[in-house]
Structures are given as C-alpha cells and as structure tokens.
C-alpha cells in the first residue's frame, strides 16, 4: 500500500501522465529564469570576468550527476528487495541522463578550467572521481544493453550498482589521498564556493531547481517509455505463445 502502489505500472502510468505537464512547465520556468538572470543580469566577476557564469551550468549538472547515481542505487536496492519492476526500470531510465549530466559537468568544467587554471584538464581529485563516476555509468549501461533477458539484466545491473557504489566512494577517497600535497588546484572548486557572492548565488539556486526538475521530467518520460517497451515485449511473447 502507500508509496508502493506506485510501483504498479498501471498506477505509475496514470500518475506520471498527470504530473508530467506540471514538472515540464516548472522546469522551463526555472531554467529560463535562472539562466537568463545568471547570464545577462549578473556583473562579471572581478577575477574571472564573464567566465564565472559557466557556474550556472557546471555546478547544477555536477550535482545532478552525483545525485542521479545515488537515486539509481536506491531504486536498484528497492528492486532487489521488493522486486518492483518500475523501480529498476527507473534506474535504467536514469542512467543515460546521468551520463549526459556528467558530460556537461566535464565539458563546462574543462571550458572553465582553460581560463582559470590555464589547462583543460587537471588531475584534481574531484575531477578525477568524476571521470570514474562516468566510467561507472558506462559500465552500468553497457551491462544493461548486453543482456537479453530483462529480469536477468535487472538483477545483474542492480548488483553491479551496489558494488560499484562502494568502489566509487573508495575511489573518491583514494583520489583525494593520491593527489594530496601534489597539486594545489585540488579543492579549488570548494574555495570558490565560499566567495560566490549573493549576486551569483540566487540565480544559481534557480538553475539548481531547474536541473532537478529537468531530471524528474526526463526520468518520468523515459520510465514511461521503458514500461511501454516492456508491454510490447509481453505482447510479442503472447503472440508467440499463440503461434
């Protein structure tokens, strides 16, 4: 009962259909406000000039990239424990979004790094662990696509997600340790956070909200498609049985 009933595909389809328009609308509003405000109505940073504005894409995408993986971890767990198809399908649907977010973070970061650090890429622990996260996403998707039987795939990918998460955290720690004292740029991102003045901060909040909503919208859409594909598969099987 309660929340779990949404794990029933029928129920999920109905509710998601009802919600989608609103989330989509809100996403549009937040992103437009946040980005326009951020890009056109904020002063240039005294040190970084206009490049600072990349933050409006970079930070939200980076945060999402991480949080999406966490969300996948949770849904995978739910699948393993309660065997709710929708939750594992949600995880499957989330992965590509996560990859895109990671890529956005990487690229914007790289573009930002050029003026800031004078290089496209630094082996800063944070960036590095991000690269690893990217690899985990790739592996997860590859495994999904490699296995025919959907339930088998669901189980195996969920296991991979669990184990992977543990190792992802380990890698983050390892990366910190590995780059210790070797490289100043290490926690640059964090330092900047401190002196992100309010003028930059408020639009950033809008962007963050926008990205979260964007993810929710895309997730609902993709999960719906996944469910539909499943139904198609079920129908095919019926035909075969009839034949």
């Amino acid at each position, binding site marked *: 009962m309660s929340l779990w009933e949404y794990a029933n595909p029928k129920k999920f389809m109905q509710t998601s259909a009802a919600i989608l328009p609103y989330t989509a609308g809100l996403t549009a509003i937040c992103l437009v406000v946040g980005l326009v405000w951020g890009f056109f109505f904020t002063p240039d940073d005294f040190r970084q000039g206009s490049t600072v504005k990349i933050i409006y894409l970079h930070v939200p995408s980076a945060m999402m990239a991480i949080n999406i993986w966490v969300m996948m971890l949770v849904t995978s767990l739910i699948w393993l424990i309660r065997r709710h198809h929708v939750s594992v399908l949600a995880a499957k649907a989330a992965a590509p979004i996560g990859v895109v977010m990671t890529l956005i973070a990487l690229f914007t970061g*790289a573009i930002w790094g050029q003026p800031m650090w004078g*290089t*496209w*890429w*630094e*082996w*800063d622990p944070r960036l*590095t662990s991000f*690269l*690893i996260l990217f*690899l985990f996403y*790739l*592996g997860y998707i*590859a495994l999904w*696509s*490699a296995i025919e039987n959907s339930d088998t795939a669901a189980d195996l990918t969920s296991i991979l997600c669990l184990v992977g998460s543990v190792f992802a955290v380990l890698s983050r720690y390892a990366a910190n340790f*590995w*780059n210790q004292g*070797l*490289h100043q740029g290490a926690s640059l991102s964090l330092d900047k956070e401190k002196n992100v003045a309010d003028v930059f901060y408020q639009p950033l909040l809008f962007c963050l909200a926008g990205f979260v909503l964007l993810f929710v919208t895309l997730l609902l859409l993709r999960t719906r498609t996944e469910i539909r594909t499943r139904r198609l598969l079920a129908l095919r099987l019926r035909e075969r049985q009839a034949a």
Partner: protein
Amino acid sequence: MKALLLRDLALAVKAGGGFGLSLAFFLIVTVLIPFGVGPDTGILSEVASGVLWVGALLACLLSLDRIFQLDFEDGSLDLLVTAPLPLEGLVAVKAFAHWLTTGLPLTLMAPVLAVLLNLDPAGFPWLVVSLALGTPALSMIGTFGAALTVGLKRGGLLLSLLVLPLYVPTLIFGAETVRRAVDGFDTTTPLLMLAGITLGTIALLPFAAAAAIRINLR
C-alpha cells in the same frame, strides 16, 4: 564477401562487442595510467604520446580473439572454408571488420583522451594521422595472430603474446611520429615507415593467415 562483412559488423554490434567497448577500454587504460604514474601533468604530457599509442594497441589486442574463435567453436569456420569464398578474402574481410569496429573509433577518440593527458596541442593532428595510418596494420597483424591460435581454447593470452612483438615496429614509428611533432622535428620519415608497414602487412599477411587457418582446421 559483403554478406560476411555485414554479418561480422552485426555480430560485433550485437554480441556486446562493437564500437563502444574498445573505446571504453581505451578510455579506461588512459585514465589508469595517471593513477599509477601520479597526477603531475608535466610527466604526463611527457609520456602522453606513448601511453595513447600503447592504449590503442591494447584496445585492439583485447578484441582479437573474437575474430576467428567464435566461428571455430560453433563450426561456422568449417562451413566458411568449404564455402565458395577465397580464404584469403575471408581473412581480409575479417581484418577489415575488426578495424572498423576498433581501429577507426580509436583514431577518432584519441584527441579527446590526449586532452586528459595534456598532450602538447602540436601533437594532436599527428596523433590522429599516425593512428589512422597505423591501426589497419594492428588489425591485420592481429588477424594473423588470431588465425595462428584459432584451434586453442581461450588462446587469448597466448595470442597477445604472439602478436605484441609483431606490434613493436608499428608502435615505435607511431609514437615516434607524435613525439617528433611535439618536439617540433620533421615527421615524414616515421610516417612513411608506418604507411609502409601497413601496406606491407595488408599485402602479405592475408595469405599467411589463410595458410594458418587451413593448417589449424585439419
């Protein structure tokens, strides 16, 4: 011939092979190196060209045992040999399919990874050119190796053992090209050598490989 090429591509894409994986492997190897060597960009850019080439080479290597082993195990190699295809042609097609699924994507991917290892920008075009010229040789040599080891179950490791030494010249000239470009020297000589090796292998190895297969089947 065409049918065979299409089939191999279809299989590569379907059976978890395909473009994606060799790329991913390439990416991973290049990412691992800094973890081993340490984050100092100075050293990294020093070794970048070499690492990239070795990485591409290993990515090629890992997909080699696919080329014939599967066909051997499920018996289709027997059938292909008795089919009206010249065995040399079959080998060439297999090698080409392998290049399409590994060498080509690797070449296109290389510049991106070069950024990660902060390779000197001067090297970028030459990296691509050298890979484009060199990878066909890698695929062809690899196919030859695969033909030699086709009988053996999971000859994978042995295969790489046989093939890697044959890869050395290609590797040397390929990496040399990039290094010279970075140091601002003339790159024609290594490039010419590279082209020479590729042409030579494409011209000769199909026959050797075909012979090897005939021997392995009896």
